[in-house]
């Protein structure tokens, strides 16, 4: 049935869309708190995924009963440390630079992280299992439990994040730093801790996104490139000034991406998604949910 296939594609779109949403949220979080467009987000996620994969293979070979869980936990621990180190070593010393300078630092990071990944882990492509294996048939549709896991996980993470931002003191600290870090600092907000925390969060979300998408893309140095671009498109689509925008943007991009990929061709996916963004930007130059800044003359 046509509608079944359509539904399956939409559902698949929600699955990848949730991952785009996670990644986009990470990008916006970092941008609003430390004024950096982290172009290296995708590469860092890729690197984390490689580490995760290595833990998975290693613990499976060592006879550990739950290698995937070990890998998952390993992903969280590694990416937290990774995000912390990157922020500390590369971002903080250059926090006085211009916006462009900070952009270049992340470009440099792309080279370093991608290059290191290739040097350490090699250029081969590796298979990674899903979180929950197997599938269920509903008539003509195939539904994988893994998809529910991905969507569920993304929802949980976003809910936790939103709860924290809206209802806790630390969330207030984040919002204060995002609005005006100089004043926040004067008011006693621990802006350095806030910045470090957002980098850790964003890197962790990237690592999870990478782990969840790995079954579909395989693990290799270029695995996150396309997703990374789409997550930026999602962030712009949603609007950089809100935290809700990137999530909606991510879901929209995910669904659009899937539908185009199935009904038109996988070649044209990126071009059409990008074209969609341009059309939206023509009518809403600050994204769907972005705020128009008020300029004082």
């Amino acid at each position, binding site marked *: 049935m046509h509608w079944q296939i359509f539904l399956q594609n939409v559902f698949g779109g929600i699955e990848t869309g949730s991952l785009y949403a996670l990644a986009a949220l990470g990008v916006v979080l970092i941008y609003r708190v430390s004024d950096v467009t982290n172009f290296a987000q995708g590469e860092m996620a890729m690197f984390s995924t490689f580490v995760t994969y290595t833990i998975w293979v290693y613990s499976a070979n060592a006879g550990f009963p739950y290698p995937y869980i070990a890998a998952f936990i390993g992903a969280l621990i590694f990416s937290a440390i990774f995000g912390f180190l990157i922020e500390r070593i590369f971002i903080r010393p250059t926090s006085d630079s211009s916006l462009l300078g900070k952009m270049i630092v992340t470009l440099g990071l792309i080279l370093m992280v991608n290059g290191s990944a290739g*040097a350490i882990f090699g250029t081969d492509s590796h298979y990674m299992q899903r979180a929950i294996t197997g599938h269920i048939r509903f008539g003509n549709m195939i539904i994988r439990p893994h998809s529910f896991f991905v969507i569920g996980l993304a929802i949980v993470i976003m809910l936790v994040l939103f709860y924290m931002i809206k209802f806790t003191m630390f969330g207030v600290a984040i919002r204060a730093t995002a609005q005006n870090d100089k004043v926040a600092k004067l008011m006693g907000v621990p802006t350095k801790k806030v910045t470090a925390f957002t980098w850790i969060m964003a890197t962790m979300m990237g690592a999870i996104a990478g782990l969840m998408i790995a079954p579909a893309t395989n693990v290799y140095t270029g695995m996150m490139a396309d997703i990374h671009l789409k997550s930026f498109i999602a962030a712009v689509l949603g609007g950089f000034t809100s935290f809700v925008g990137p999530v909606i943007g991510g879901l929209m991009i995910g669904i659009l991406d899937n539908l185009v990929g199935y009904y038109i061709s996988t070649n044209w996916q990126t071009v059409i998604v990008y074209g969609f963004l341009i059309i939206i930007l023509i009518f809403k130059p600050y994204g769907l949910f972005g705020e128009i800044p008020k300029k004082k003359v």
Partner: protein
Amino acid sequence: MAFFKLFNNNPYFKYILGSIIFVIIVFIDLQLGLFASRTVNLLIRVVYFSVVAIGFNILLGYAGQISLGHAAFMGFGAYLTAFISNNYGLGFLPTIILSGLIPMVFGVILGLVALRLERLYLAIATLGIGVTIEFVFREWVWFTNGFSGARLSRPEIFGFAFNNSRHFLLLSTIILFIVILFTYNLINSKTGRALSAMRDSGHAAQAMGISLFKYKLIAFALSAFYVGIAGSLYAYAERYVHPSTWGAELSLDMLAMVVIGGLASIGGSVTGAGFLVFVPRLVQDLPLIGEITNINFILTGLAMILVIRFMPIGIYNWFDYKFIQPFYIKRLNLNKPGGDD
């Protein structure tokens, strides 16, 4: 003393002296093979990337506009050169100029889009161009020959073919110097000032009669033109144009060149081009370290970060302000801190 006065009062003197020295070097090289072949090819790369960097600096350094998709214009210029020289044989000068003019039209279109979008959104939107242009070139088979790539031969001027790379190096350097002189003149004139004014204060610029609409379009048009002719030089130099060259990486390299070399500075543009061409190669040649896979990527990335950390205004500007300007001020008793080269 008189020498320094001449140097300072007549800026052209710098460039004329530089070009005379360079012509002498190249001439010696032609006779004696001073540079290795590989070096000649690297220098050609530096030359056309310098044109790119100057064009991109006009957009970003002087006018304050961003585009992360400019590789599209360079590729377009390259393919135009291949297409024209294979199908119409128009001759070097008309071909290279057309390879700049046609991308310039698209530059104006991009400028119209840029009028609507604020910096960050413009950056990401143009990044999308940077990513998808490769695909467009691959599919546009009748124009680009798609996946197989386009081949062409070196240009001919009055029957003299530039097949020898050393000759071509000389030719492209002459083009670069024309570009530099033109740009220098432009910067120190009404249009150049209007662009910088637009960057520093859009409101005040408008109050002085500068139409942001007009000058943003000029910035995008000029930068597309420059990058287009650089693409033309690329095509003639490599004699082969392939879609995979024109990816996001190249667009981001253009940004890196001008920020690392120095914004709003012709010297900075050339420095940045030199940095991005030579540093990866030099790293590869290092003993022991050079053997590690991907080490050139890793160390180039590190070098970029170190430059931002320690020389945030760019390598050339940093040296200019630290050493060269104070030297002039002391020697000539002026109170003249820099600005443009």
